[in-house]
């Protein structure tokens, strides 16, 4: 009887404690750093957060040093200069992935875009300008993943072809960072590599992460919120980098079929996928494809990804399986499988 009485009191005490203290004992570690030409933040919860975040940060810097187009010591820089290198495993894997997604998207996503981006001046140190049709036609001859040959660990390019992995490097980096955090015992973290979001697990309280999608017309606002766990969320939009000339806006997402900034009727595309690299590449690829082609593409590949589209008319479309995880103040259409 005494024992039972004690148990009861203990139980009630615990119940009351749970009722009145909604605090969580999880510690949190934040890190903000500059890499890959952008600001990155990693926030990890739990006691193992600090070491894991530092390891992830080192890894991202290592990948940046391999893949940067601008850094004179990077493998990609050397490849673009010498047109042939024996590549490290990360570079090789990512180039292979780039070719794979090129085929998947029928060329809408292309890692051989470097000459075009250079012409339009979308690299640091260059002036933005409108190239002549002749320059574009010349550059287009050597654009396309067919110009990359891979022989064991050697990557060989056509004489005028150059690579820019900027469209998938951050996705790749976030997948590696997420993997490191998990391996080191972090079960709750959020990674932002310059707006490429990757969530690890759920929030410490078990609820999903809420990811705001930037309003293309006003960067301080959001068009809606996605509730997700353990996925990558990546947005590509013409508003992110552009220049204006003669009243025309020229943005940085170039259609490798025309050589001009993609005029696909979209303001931004957000891709949600478990595969960070794919999400990063597809956000660009779908932007180039436009809404109608993207719908078709989604119906064929609905197991790979989900997406949110914002059109030039500010209409919002989301893919079917996101229906229950998207909340927005405005109305939106659903793209069915």
């Amino acid at each position: 009887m005494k024992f039972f009485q004690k148990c009861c009191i203990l139980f009630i005490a615990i119940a009351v404690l749970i009722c009145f203290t909604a605090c969580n004992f999880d510690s949190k570690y934040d890190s903000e750093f500059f890499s890959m030409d952008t600001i990155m933040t990693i926030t990890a919860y739990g006691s193992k957060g600090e070491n894991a975040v530092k390891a992830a940060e080192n890894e991202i810097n290592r990948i940046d040093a391999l893949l940067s187009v601008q850094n004179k010591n990077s493998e990609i820089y050397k490849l673009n200069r010498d047109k042939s290198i024996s590549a490290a495993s990360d570079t090789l894997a990512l180039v292979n992935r780039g070719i794979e997604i090129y085929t998947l998207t029928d060329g809408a996503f292309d890692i051989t875009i470097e000459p075009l981006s250079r012409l339009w001046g979308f690299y640091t140190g260059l002036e933005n300008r409108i190239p002549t049709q002749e320059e574009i036609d010349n550059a287009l001859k050597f654009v396309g993943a067919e110009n990359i040959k891979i022989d064991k660990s050697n990557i060989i390019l056509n004489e005028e072809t150059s690579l820019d992995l900027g469209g998938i490097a951050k996705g790749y980096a976030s997948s590696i960072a997420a993997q490191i955090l998990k391996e080191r015992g972090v079960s709750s973290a959020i990674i932002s590599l310059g707006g490429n979001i990757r969530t690890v697990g759920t929030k410490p309280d078990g609820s999903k992460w809420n990811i705001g999608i930037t309003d293309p017309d006003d960067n301080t606002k959001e068009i809606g919120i996605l509730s997700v766990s353990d996925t990558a969320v990546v947005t590509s939009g013409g508003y992110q980098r552009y220049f204006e000339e003669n009243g025309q806006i020229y943005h940085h997402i170039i259609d490798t079929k025309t050589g001009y900034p993609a005029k696909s009727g979209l303001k931004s595309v957000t891709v949600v996928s478990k595969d960070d690299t794919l999400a990063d590449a597809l956000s660009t690829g779908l932007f180039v494809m436009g809404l109608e082609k993207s719908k078709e593409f989604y119906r064929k590949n609905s197991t790979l990804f989900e997406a949110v589209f914002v059109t030039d008319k500010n209409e919002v479309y989301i893919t079917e399986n996101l229906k229950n995880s998207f909340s927005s103040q405005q109305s939106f259409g659903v793209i069915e499988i």
Partner: protein
Amino acid sequence: MKTRTWIIILSSVVIVCAILWMSILNSLSPSKIVGIYQDGNLVEKIDLNSVTYQREITLTGEFGKNTIYISNEHIEMKSAECPDKLCVKHGELKSGGTPIVCLPNRIVIQFEDDSKEADAKTGAVR
């Protein structure tokens, strides 16, 4: 354990629950976004503020039809063919409030929290 101890414990549980219930009623978000669920699946999500004309939604379950009435003022279960009709008795929901439930046809009408705050933002300008 003495009966008196039990009376004390039980009455304190009643008090705690009463406080909890009051705080739940108070904390219900003054949201105007309402979700209609059947079998746990979202049927429709409606922002009552943006409802311009009154309309009805009819859902059919194993136990007949439920008719939901929506105007920009409120939402209510107008009629039900299920045996108990408790959902109809629940009355109108204006903003916030405990969910309307129809257990026989497994329908739930509840207000959704629209004050979600983003943990991170995708697509920020690089």
